[in-house]
């Protein structure tokens, strides 16, 4: 009888202890869950913020990217992105989900405009060592021209500019009389001057490369090659030596990391930068033309021309590029998370 009583008491006590232990254990679990939920909220926020960064990077590469992009996965969660608005007032809305928690982050951004440094000559040669061989009916003109060849509204600038007075004297001395008369622009004929510009053209070129709309490998490009149009100018990057021939044409900015050769009727309206670590050869033949400005940057530059090529300063062509080309940089104006 007594044994049964004790057994009942022991079972009762055990039940009570078990209940208490379970209750305390439950509290511990809930306490842990409180910390875990803070982590989960934080993780959801981090996913949403990271998603904005990911799509900003995609927008750098794809300048027309917008719309809804749903159910992307990241860090064990998922996110939706909605990009809308013009380049001057972009909104990127990121909605993330992580283990039942949702977070929204909003970023407002504007695409920074492309920058074209002040152009101080129709052709700028920035080099320690300069070689010239200009022949034919070459026409280098620092007077402002429109893209159709008619006179432009801006004041004249030099036809050719070089680094220092020694180079300037060298150019003048090297010019044949016929060519000398064909270098027009401010300061008389031949219009050759020293460049007072401190622009780092390599850095400028690298900025353009970062924002390039089209990248071409080294090679020969002929009729059918279109490096942008007047309606859609573009930033074109050529990774090495390039030769343009036939009726190839382009608008915007052309950056060449190597030698530039032009022949046939190749015409470009905008800014050309040819740069390299060592020698830059620029060979011009045929009847092509550059409307805008040409920048040649290298340890040494060898400029050779024959034929009827034209290098016209054109503020209209440069403004077309400046006003229509998109950079790949964004300014974040606001961030809500």
């Amino acid at each position, binding site marked *: 009888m007594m044994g049964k009583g*004790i057994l009942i*008491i022991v079972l009762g*006590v055990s039940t*009570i202890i078990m209940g208490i232990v379970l209750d305390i254990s439950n*509290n*511990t679990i809930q*306490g842990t869950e*409180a910390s875990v939920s803070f982590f989960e909220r934080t993780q959801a926020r981090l996913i949403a913020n990271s998603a904005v960064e990911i799509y900003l990077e995609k927008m750098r590469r794809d300048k027309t990217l917008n719309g809804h992009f749903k159910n992307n996965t990241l860090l064990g969660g998922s996110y939706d992105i909605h990009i809308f608005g013009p380049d001057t007032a972009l909104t990127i809305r990121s909605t993330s989900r992580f283990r039942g928690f949702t977070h929204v982050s909003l970023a407002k951004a504007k695409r920074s405009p492309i920058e074209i440094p002040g152009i101080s000559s129709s052709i700028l040669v920035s080099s320690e060592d300069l070689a010239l061989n200009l022949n034919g009916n070459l026409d280098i003109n620092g007077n402002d021209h429109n893209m159709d060849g008619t006179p432009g509204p801006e004041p004249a600038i030099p036809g050719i500019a070089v680094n220092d007075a020694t180079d300037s004297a060298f150019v003048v001395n090297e010019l044949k009389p016929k060519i000398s008369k064909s270098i027009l622009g401010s300061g008389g004929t031949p219009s050759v001057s020293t460049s007072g510009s401190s622009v780092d053209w390599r850095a400028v070129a690298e900025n353009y490369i970062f924002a390039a709309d089209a990248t071409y490998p080294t090679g020969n490009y002929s009729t059918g090659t279109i490096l942008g149009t007047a309606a859609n100018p573009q930033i074109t990057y050529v990774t090495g030596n390039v030769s343009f021939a036939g009726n190839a044409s382009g608008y915007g900015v052309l950056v060449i990391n190597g030698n530039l050769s032009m022949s046939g009727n190749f015409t470009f309206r905008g800014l050309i930068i040819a740069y390299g670590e060592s020698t830059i050869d620029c060979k011009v033949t045929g009847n092509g033309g550059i409307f805008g400005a040409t920048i040649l940057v290298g340890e040494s530059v060898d400029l050779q021309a024959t034929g009827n090529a034209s290098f016209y300063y054109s503020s209209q062509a440069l403004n077309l590029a400046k006003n229509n080309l998109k950079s790949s940089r964004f300014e974040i104006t*606001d961030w*809500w998370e």
Partner: protein
Amino acid sequence: MANLLDIIAAFLIGGILFLMIMNLNVYSSEAKFASDSELLLQRDAQTLAEILSHDLRKIGYGHTGTSILVADSQRIKFVADIDTNSVLDTVTLFLGSPDEVTGTPNPRDRYLYRIVNGVQSSGPVLGLVRLRFVYRDILSAVTTNIPDIKYVETEIWVETPHPVNDTYPFTYWEMKIRPRNL
């Protein structure tokens, strides 16, 4: 006689068992209370951290220029479109006085006041006993110059509203927030 001894022994054992159960009950009640208080403490600290984090991360949203209006160790006032309705809000966060909280035995707990556009709100007492803002510049050096502020470091001390074994257990949270609009 033998029966009497059996009864006495049974009472003795029963009494001991009863005392043990009572003691166990008291112990378990205290343990449960301590455990409940610990859980409450963690939840309160988490809630406070989320409130502060929610507001401080939005400093300057939709506003150009200097967005922080007041920045001292006990109070921060800033401008932000906190609810994304394209209307700027002025938000103030500060710690109240211990005298204002009368509903808890803890003599040190205070309200966290949140004033949005002049409308004051103070939520439930969450055991907040101390709040400190530290402001840092872009190099993470402490600054008192408002235009230089890039980081807001927030420290909170939270205690239980009721004593546990005559003491008020506390927890401490620290957050270093970089509001992206600064």
